[in-house]
């Protein structure tokens, strides 16, 4: 395990080279304690992927960072701001954009309204032209009801709408879940292109092969803790361990 990647003992406040720095993150759904002290960092321009079995706490980690979980504790620093007690609307306005696992397309809004819904939090969001270039399907479906789109189109819409906001840190929760290979490929291209443009991305993925095409680093989550972490270049060397972790 590479110590520099885990960096659990370094003070979060002192680190200028991280966009997101999480220390001892704990979270609860009602009475049930689901995150048991996670430590991880995301550096500018990186794509970091959280891997792990179903129910390990990956999605919960994103929700805890976003502030949309019942109760959380620990240190969460985003670009030097302590957001561990901030409300989710404030966290969003600081520049974190979230794409939930269930996609969250609104049935009572048409595609254009869904796309235009998240308010701009910073200047420099992607223009509609660029978004339609990334996701040409959306342009043709602007007048359709949001939930009338196919699963793949809904996922594109869910990603597209947060690119408009100017947020430079994206959290994507299982963007490839249940999608056809050709669509997964398109989403992979999009993530690669966003990375090129300097976006920082925290990704939750079950689809390990997909993650391998886009990620710089991995953290393995199990029972609400980070149990391992390595860079994409160390992937081959860690393959066996990873199979054991993920039980594939």
């Amino acid at each position, binding site marked *: 395990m590479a110590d520099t990647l885990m960096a659990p003992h370094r003070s979060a406040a002192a680190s200028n080279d991280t966009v997101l720095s999480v220390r001892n993150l704990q979270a609860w759904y009602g009475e049930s304690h689901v995150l048991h002290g996670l430590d991880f960092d995301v550096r500018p321009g990186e794509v970091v992927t959280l891997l792990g079995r179903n129910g390990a706490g990956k999605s919960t980690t994103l929700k805890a960072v*976003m502030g949309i979980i019942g109760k959380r504790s620990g240190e969460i620093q985003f670009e030097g701001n302590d957001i561990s007690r901030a*409300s989710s609307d404030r966290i969003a306005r600081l520049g974190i954009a979230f794409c939930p696992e269930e996609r969250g397309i609104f049935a009572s*809004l048409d595609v254009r309204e869904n796309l235009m819904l998240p308010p701009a939090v910073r200047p420099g969001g992607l223009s509609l032209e660029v978004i339609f270039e990334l996701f040409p399907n959306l342009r043709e479906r602007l007048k359709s009801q949001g939930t009338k789109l196919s699963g793949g189109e809904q996922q594109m819409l869910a990603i597209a709408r947060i690119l408009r906001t100017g947020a430079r840190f994206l959290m994507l929760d299982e963007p490839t879940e249940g999608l056809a290979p050709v669509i997964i490929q398109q989403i992979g291209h999009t993530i690669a292109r966003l990375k090129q443009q300097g976006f920082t991305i925290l990704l939750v993925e079950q689809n390990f092969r997909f993650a391998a095409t886009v990620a710089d680093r991995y953290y393995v989550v199990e029972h609400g803790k980070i149990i391992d972490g390595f860079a994409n270049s160390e992937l081959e060397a860690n393959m066996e361990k990873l199979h054991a972790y993920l039980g594939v």
Partner: protein
Amino acid sequence: MDINLQALFAQLLVGLINGSFYALLSLGLAVIFGMLNIINFAHGALYMMGAFCAYFLLNVLGIGYWYALIIAPIVVGLFGILLERTMLQWLSGLDHLYGLLLTFGLGLIIQGVFQNYFGSSGLPYAIPEELRGGINLGFMFLPVYRGWVVVFSLAVCLLTWFLIERTQLGAYLRAATENPTLVRAFGINVPRMITLTYGLGVGLAALAGVLSAPINQVRPLMGADLIIVVFAVVVIGGMGSIMGSIITGFALGIIEGLTKYFYPEASNTVVFVLMVLVLLIKPAGLTGRTA
């Protein structure tokens, strides 16, 4: 059957007027229910407060009808915001029943206080000078004020519909009705939106109260009488749709009016009979979504 057109149109007009009030009130109830998940039983009392507000403005401060149309909804809307901030907000996430009981109690208290000071008889509120008199349309005589109430209510309803269905603010509102957590995670201050929505719904009720003051007089129980019918209208129309509330409101007013002409004995019950029928056939209401 011998049809007396004069009388038929007169009843149709009464129906349209009642329909205007039904539409304004059920529209507010639908908006509030969508965002707060609360069936606002205080709506009738707040409607009555709108009328009293107009009365006080005129008789205490000498401020007339036209200003009251703007001031009363704002004042009563602010009172609604106070209720939401101090009480209703703590009920979010609980069963409908809690909100229903709380607002029902609030309605009774407000009504009781007004009854204590003003009794049960009506206070007069004069029709503003510009809207007095009537126009002979040939087939009927149209009192100007009544025509104004119908046209103005319809305009306010359509404006509210436009605001909710066609603007960015309305898109926030519709989205937050579906998934408030996610809308908040996009950076929108949803709690503040909920408060303002309650204020808007209450403001619509108060506006209906001002409109009604010159027609029905200003009475502490004016809301209690009306709100029972309005809830039946809401049940028939369903809570789901804005346009549904508007159309159902006007349609039921007209149906009531027609019943008054053709079979007056049933005019007070026709809405409730329709409600029972709708509940039997389509429990979510004509335009409603199942919760």
